[in-house]
């Protein structure tokens, strides 16, 4: 039932519009996921994986960078313990994603959160967080829009690449390797809503690149994600800025933020 003042209608309209936008955002990244899933399947075949092994990794691990790395490590004969340890380090950034989403999802049932965790990737985090911020509240179906656009095509593309990847052009020739950084950068812009977010993002860039050059990209990204927010917090708070604990709530009764720019 709609409230007489039309607030529910506005909220419902904003919800639908934001979900559509999340789907559009995720669709572009799904294309890249398909291309790289095919490349992964082909690489896994070349490294001696069976099709079940390649598929199982895409379903169970569901983390592209560590899967590509594992293919290389297996081909080199690296001990499993080392591969597992490096996988942990490569995927440690997910801790930051989960911690950032947790305040939004505090009223989502624990079992549902446990399932959602498996779908948490760079892409689903970026799309989901932007969606939550547009709405000013959590929306679990909206999160799954971002997650399923990667979760479904990735294993399918793995199998396709394994079976017929030789016929597909190199994704880098098509420029598809730029989809990931372009999408992450553009989505970062989408979640910058004030001076503190801007400072955190700029610091994330500087620290992420600097530490990547000194160590590795995985470590750099985590360092940028950990230290950047501290720089953002150091920016003086203005009365017009959102309070630190303002946005993350999940009761569905926050005021909706406009979807259109």
């Amino acid at each position, binding site marked *: 039932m709609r409230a007489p003042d039309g607030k529910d209608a506005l909220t419902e309209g904003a919800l639908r519009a934001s979900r559509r936008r999340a789907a559009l955002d995720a*669709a*572009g990244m799904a294309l890249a996921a398909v291309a790289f899933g095919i490349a992964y399947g082909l690489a896994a075949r070349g490294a*001696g994986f*069976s099709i079940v092994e390649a598929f199982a*990794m895409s379903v*169970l691990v569901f983390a592209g960078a560590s899967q590509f790395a*594992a293919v290389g490590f*297996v081909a080199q004969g690296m001990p499993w313990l080392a591969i597992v340890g490096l996988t942990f380090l490569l995927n*440690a*950034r*997910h*801790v*930051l994603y*989960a*911690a*950032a989403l*947790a*305040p939004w999802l*505090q009223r989502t049932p624990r079992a549902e*959160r*446990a399932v959602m*965790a*498996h779908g*948490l990737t760079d892409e689903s*985090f*970026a799309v989901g967080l932007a969606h939550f911020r547009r709405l000013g509240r959590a929306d679990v179906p909206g999160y799954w829009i971002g997650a399923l656009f990667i979760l479904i095509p990735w294993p399918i593309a793995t199998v396709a690449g394994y079976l017929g990847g030789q016929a597909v052009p190199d994704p*880098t*020739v*098509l420029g598809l390797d*730029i*989809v990931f*950084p*372009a*999408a*992450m*950068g*553009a*989505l*970062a*812009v*989408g979640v910058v809503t004030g001076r*503190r977010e*801007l400072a*955190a*993002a700029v610091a*994330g860039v500087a620290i992420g690149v600097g530490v990547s*050059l000194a160590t590795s*990209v995985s470590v*750099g*990204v985590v*360092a*940028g994600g950990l*230290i950047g927010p501290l720089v*953002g*917090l150091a920016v003086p708070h203005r009365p017009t800025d959102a309070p*630190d*604990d303002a*946005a*993350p709530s999940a009761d569905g009764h926050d005021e909706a933020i406009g979807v259109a*720019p």
Partner: protein
Amino acid sequence: MSLDLVALAVLMAAVTYPSRSIPLLAPGIERLPPVVLGYLRLVGPAVLASLAAANALVLVEPDGSTTFHVGIEAAAVAIAVAIVAWRRSLLLPAIAVAVLVVAGARAVGIA
């Protein structure tokens, strides 16, 4: 058909899932101090920007070493960011432009 590496996939999943789930499942997130919640609000912009920049500006050499590289990839990401900063609803077209810029530059041999 070999299934040995399925066990490796299970082990890799066993060390990946906790990093995805523990912060989501930890109790008491709503009782965190405001400054911690404020920190968590800023993780998104920082880590997304860090991901974009590290992937666009850092080149990983075959031996695993990293070098700073400003090329057509960084320009394409900057163009995508500029488009979305202008109109936030244009994410998909922004990505498409970035892909066209990089593919075009590579096709003509300038990248």
